């Protein structure tokens, strides 16, 4: 059943929903990357909630003009206009008053949403029967998705992706270093607006599939996930698009397999599952990798301290150090060094002395900055340099009786 759904074998509507959702997921993931890098991920929350009054007003206007009121492009146009106004309000409140951006976001999203609900109740009293579709914009409703709707999503997503591709350089630049980009002639305000505008486009296009409360997740979770896997903007955008598309594909397929599995929430939860896997397993940034790295570092510190203690004949009380030394065959259970241990300890002490000379000498400055108490001196200096240091240090000499 699930395999059928994943391979588009569950009938026309399920196929349409799955493809539409996946396209949307890719577009949202790629666009959200820049929003996240610009550290303004939550602006998307304001944008998405601000679509509601626009949808409702567009519906009212269409009905007043004698139409059916359910033309998706017109509703989406209304959504785009009102969320643009909301975005301008956030920007204006942040720039012109003392309110911080978070307060501006919260104020705009709640007020616009509240006004949208007022308009929804107006619509309910206008003609209760035909308004039923509008509630679908809150949490998404894919059940009645038509071919035209899928086309709107596909075209909207493709246009957004193309614009992201064109604008990727200035957007990346502004996200990382707004001052530098301003100094090199990029209009930061306008690029910011472009980032927000693209997020807005994705939000509006995605309203029908996941609804305005959860579209935020499609813009935020994939970029956060992608950030674990790479340090390059272009790779991040691609991975993010991939994660978003995958989550949407799997989520839509899952929700098609049973009746009480709403598409939007399932997509969000799938996306979150991918995030959790990345959080745990990603190389370098994942928790497992960080934990292993920390563990390795801890061992090196203990080993080093243990060897220095052995060399200077100090007793070792730290259990973990003793265990490491014993396991490496460098010390006996009572903390006395083995022959091997004595040799390694002497080497460690000698290296420490070498480092001392290196760090005291201006000529070795570039090598000295690499000292962190653990680094092997051979990895920093050449054999000749070490020989030079050793010559200055001098060999062991006897004591005159």
């Amino acid at each position, binding site marked *: 059943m699930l395999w059928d759904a994943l391979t588009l074998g569950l009938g026309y509507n399920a196929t349409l929903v799955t493809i539409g959702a996946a396209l949307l997921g890719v577009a949202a993931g790629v666009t959200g990357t820049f929003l996240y890098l610009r550290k303004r991920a939550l602006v998307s929350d304001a944008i998405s909630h601000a679509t509601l009054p626009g949808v409702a007003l567009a519906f009212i206007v269409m009905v007043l003009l004698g139409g059916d009121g359910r033309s998706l492009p017109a509703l989406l146009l209304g959504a785009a206009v009102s969320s643009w106004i909301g975005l301008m309000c956030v920007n204006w409140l942040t720039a012109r008053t003392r309110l911080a951006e978070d307060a501006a976001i919260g104020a705009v999203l*709640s007020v616009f949403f509240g006004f949208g609900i007022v308009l929804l109740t107006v619509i309910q009293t206008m003609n209760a029967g035909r308004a039923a579709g509008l509630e679908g914009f809150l949490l998404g409703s894919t059940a009645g998705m038509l071919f035209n709707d899928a086309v709107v999503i596909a075209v909207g997503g493709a246009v957004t992706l193309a614009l992201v591709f064109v604008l990727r350089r200035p957007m990346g630049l502004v996200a990382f270093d707004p001052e530098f980009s301003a100094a090199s002639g990029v209009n930061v305000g306008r690029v910011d607006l472009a980032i927000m505008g693209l997020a807005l486009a994705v939000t509006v296009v995605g309203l029908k599939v996941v609804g305005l409360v959860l579209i935020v997740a499609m813009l935020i979770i994939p970029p956060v996930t992608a950030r674990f896997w790479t340090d390059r903007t272009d790779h991040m955008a691609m991975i993010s698009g991939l994660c978003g598309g995958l989550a949407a594909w799997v989520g839509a397929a899952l929700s098609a397999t049973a009746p009480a599995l709403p598409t939007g929430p399932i997509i969000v939860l799938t996306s979150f599952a991918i995030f959790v896997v990345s959080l745990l397993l990603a190389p370098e940034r994942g928790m497992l990798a960080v934990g292993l790295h920390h563990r390795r570092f801890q061992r090196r510190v203990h080993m080093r301290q243990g060897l220095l203690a052995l060399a200077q004949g100090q007793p070792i009380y730290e259990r973990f150090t003793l265990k490491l030394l014993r396991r490496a065959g460098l010390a006996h259970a009572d903390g006395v060094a083995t022959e091997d241990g004595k040799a390694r300890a002497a080497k460690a002490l000698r290296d420490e002395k070498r480092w001392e000379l290196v760090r005291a000498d201006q000529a070795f400055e570039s090598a000295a900055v690499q000292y962190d108490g653990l680094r092997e001196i051979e990895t920093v200096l050449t054999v000749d340099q070490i020989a030079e240091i050793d010559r200055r240090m001098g060999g062991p000499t006897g004591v005159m009786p």
Partner: protein
Amino acid sequence: MTGAEFVPLSLTPLLIGVFAAVACALPGNFLVLRRQALIGDAISHVVLPGIVVAFLVTGVVAAVPMLLGAAAAAVVAVVMIEAIRRLGNIEPGAAMGLTFTTLFAAGVLLLEQSDTSGVHLDVEHALYGNLESLIWLDAMGWESLFDPVALAELPVELFRVAAALVGVSGFLWVCWRPLVVSTFDEGFAQTMGMRTNVIGMALVIVAAIAAVAAFDAVGSIIVIAMFICPPAAARLMTNRLSTQIAWSVGFAVLSAVLGYILAGYGPLWIGFDNAVSAAGMIATVSGVILALTALWGPCRKRLGAPAV
């Protein structure tokens, strides 16, 4: 309008609206000042899964389990945000957005999966509340306020919201000094020996209690309006905290009363014959108040710092 009409139909929703607005606006002042305004956003979203889980565990829609469930969900959300932020090294805004959308999605899914058709619990209700239905059918007029039989039939939500308001005010009263110091200068508060993270957590829990009490009446998203708009508007009116709180309470009461009246009677005045959503109108009025203060408030500009 006579008392015989006003008391049963409008008095209790009006009071509940006012109490809910004030109960949210009070902790909202501190959330706005701490730049944690969106914690209110996150809380009001995660209240839904908390309530659904409480319902699934207990099987009844009752005040205490719902309150506990929602408070627990708020704590889970805050811990999750912190954990994701620290473990993944992710900026707080994104961690917050990730957490509350996921929890909200989980709440919607649980709601769809469980058989809640028989009880008063659905997503639309959770999002925009149902203030108008909280009427006091047993009242005959003003004299009912002194009639113990009629008073016993007051909607239970009124007591819940009033209790939340008392609790929130009590918390602010008791913790005023540490709260103020840690809000304005966290480092100083720490050197004074205050446990700032405990205070921050307590503030979040109190906000969650206010949110869940108000949630019942006004729905989860409009709770955010009450958390943010009145305090933000008050912030543009004054530079003193106590004055700001007074303004915010005033604005909250004003938006609740004006919003309720406009929603109930506004459409009648302009010729329609049906009321609109009171909760939505309250949020709208609070937004209008914020817009007015943002345009003409005496302290609307940033002091000292250049406009960014």
